[in-house]
């Protein structure tokens, strides 16, 4: 049976009007008011798909998933083409586990309600706490939890649950009522009342009235002085805490730079000193070497200069025809110290002369000294004679005899031994054997 057009159209218009009102309320999160409008809209036109879908959304938003499904299923049955409800149903039912979770939480709420209504509020609070943890937009659970907290006079926790409800559904009348009770017990109501009183002024403004900013305060004399002192203190504090550290840091940087420059100069000077010390050491070494060389030259005994002098004395003795003196001087000569070739030739001639007759002069001098009882001098002459001519058994024998007379048997026997061994068939060898007691 078809509907009379005029009534149907009127109902549809009224339904649309309620839908629009419901939509406006939903947009400002007055979900309770919106659901009332939408229910009226559907009461005038059950085919108003938008109203039914929006009502389902509101149920879903306040945690009533089953109620939402009811509305969307009816909607999709009444209008099967181009209906947003199908999408909503798919969102709920299409994702695995989601519907089961919703079912668990709703069932848990219902259990908590039974427990609360059977004088078991503690267990109910525990259950509801778990429900709102997993389903924070479940308005009914928050409301029941708030009521249970109020029953235990735990107004702070009740306020938290109600605050959450009013975030979801701003004009939920029961939540507003519960909240007013909570505020009256926490003192929040008085605070808000004072704020409200201050916010509105019933004084009528006159033309010459001046609006003073809330921060303005009229200062008395001592307050001004106090402010000046405070300002000076703040200025000093700013200088102390902001300016001084910066200045100090600047000075430190400057000093550090100067210190690094000075240290660099010191290092450079140290290097120069080291170089100079090394140079001084090298020069001192050279000086010592030169001094040693000079000392070698100046040395009286073995020095080069003294050898030249010795050679000059020998030549002078030759010139004076004083051969014994020349022989004595020759014994103190070190020919190797004289490198001059011309001198070496002279020295060679002198050496030949000394080897031919000089050794005998020394042996004679030794004999004279021995006879005079000066055995030390005698041994010295004998030794010098041997230095000129070592192959001289007579000197060796005489020298051994001197040692024997001095009772230096060991040295005497050594010399007798040389005579016996080196000159075995000589008369001196026989004498030496006799002297040794063979």
């Amino acid at each position, binding site marked *: 049976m078809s509907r009379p057009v005029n009534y149907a159209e009127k109902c549809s218009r009224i339904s649309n009007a309620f839908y629009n009102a419901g939509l406006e309320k939903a947009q400002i999160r007055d979900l309770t008011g919106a659901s009332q409008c939408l229910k009226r809209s559907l009461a005038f036109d059950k085919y108003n798909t938008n109203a039914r879908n929006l009502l389902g959304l509101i149920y879903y938003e306040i945690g009533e998933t089953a*109620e939402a499904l009811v509305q969307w299923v009816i909607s999709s049955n009444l209008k099967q083409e181009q209906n947003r409800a199908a999408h909503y149903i798919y969102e709920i039912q299409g994702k695995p586990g989601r519907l089961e979770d919703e079912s668990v939480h709703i069932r848990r709420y219902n259990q908590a309600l039974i427990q609360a209504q059977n004088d078991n509020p503690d267990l109910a609070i525990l259950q509801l706490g778990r429900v709102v943890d997993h389903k924070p937009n479940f308005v009914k659970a928050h*409301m*029941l939890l708030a009521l249970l907290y*109020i029953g235990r006079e735990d107004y702070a926790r009740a306020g938290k649950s109600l605050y959450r409800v009013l975030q979801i559904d701003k004009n939920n009348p029961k939540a507003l009522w519960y909240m007013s009770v909570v505020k009256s017990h926490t003192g929040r109501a008085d605070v808000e009342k004072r704020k409200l009183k201050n916010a509105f002024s019933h004084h009528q403004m006159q033309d010459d009235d001046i609006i003073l900013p809330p921060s303005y305060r009229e200062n008395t004399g001592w307050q001004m002085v106090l402010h000046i002192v405070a300002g000076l203190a703040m200025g000093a504090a700013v200088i102390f805490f902001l300016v001084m550290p910066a200045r100090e840091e600047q000075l430190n940087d400057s000093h550090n730079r100067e210190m690094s420059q000075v240290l660099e100069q010191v290092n450079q000077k140290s290097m120069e000193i080291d170089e100079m010390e090394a140079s001084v050491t090298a020069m001192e070494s050279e000086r010592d070497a030169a001094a040693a060389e000079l000392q070698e030259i100046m040395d009286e005994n073995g020095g080069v200069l003294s050898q030249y002098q010795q050679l000059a004395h020998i030549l002078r003795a030759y010139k004076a025809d004083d051969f014994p003196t020349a022989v004595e001087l020759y014994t103190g000569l070190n020919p190797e110290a004289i490198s001059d070739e011309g001198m070496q030739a002279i020295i060679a001639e002198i050496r030949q002369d000394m080897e031919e007759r000089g050794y005998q002069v020394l042996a004679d001098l030794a004999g004279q000294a021995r006879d005079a009882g000066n055995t030390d001098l005698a041994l010295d002459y004998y030794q010098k004679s041997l230095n000129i001519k070592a192959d001289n058994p007579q000197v060796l024998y005489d020298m051994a005899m001197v040692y024997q007379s001095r009772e230096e048997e060991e040295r005497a026997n050594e010399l007798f031994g040389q005579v016996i061994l080196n000159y075995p068939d000589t008369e001196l060898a026989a004498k030496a054997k006799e002297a040794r007691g063979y």
Partner: protein
Amino acid sequence: MINFEEELSHFKPSLEVEQVEDAIVDSDLTDMADIMMSLIREGSESKKRNE
């Protein structure tokens, strides 16, 4: 002031997912247009009877 017991009694169980089908079946979808149609129909029937 809140009467705790009374308030608690006002809370109703939430519709569970398993109850959705029953809820749909039990839904009263009668709208104003249906009521108007019913009234018009009743009016026309009574008119016929009177005639």
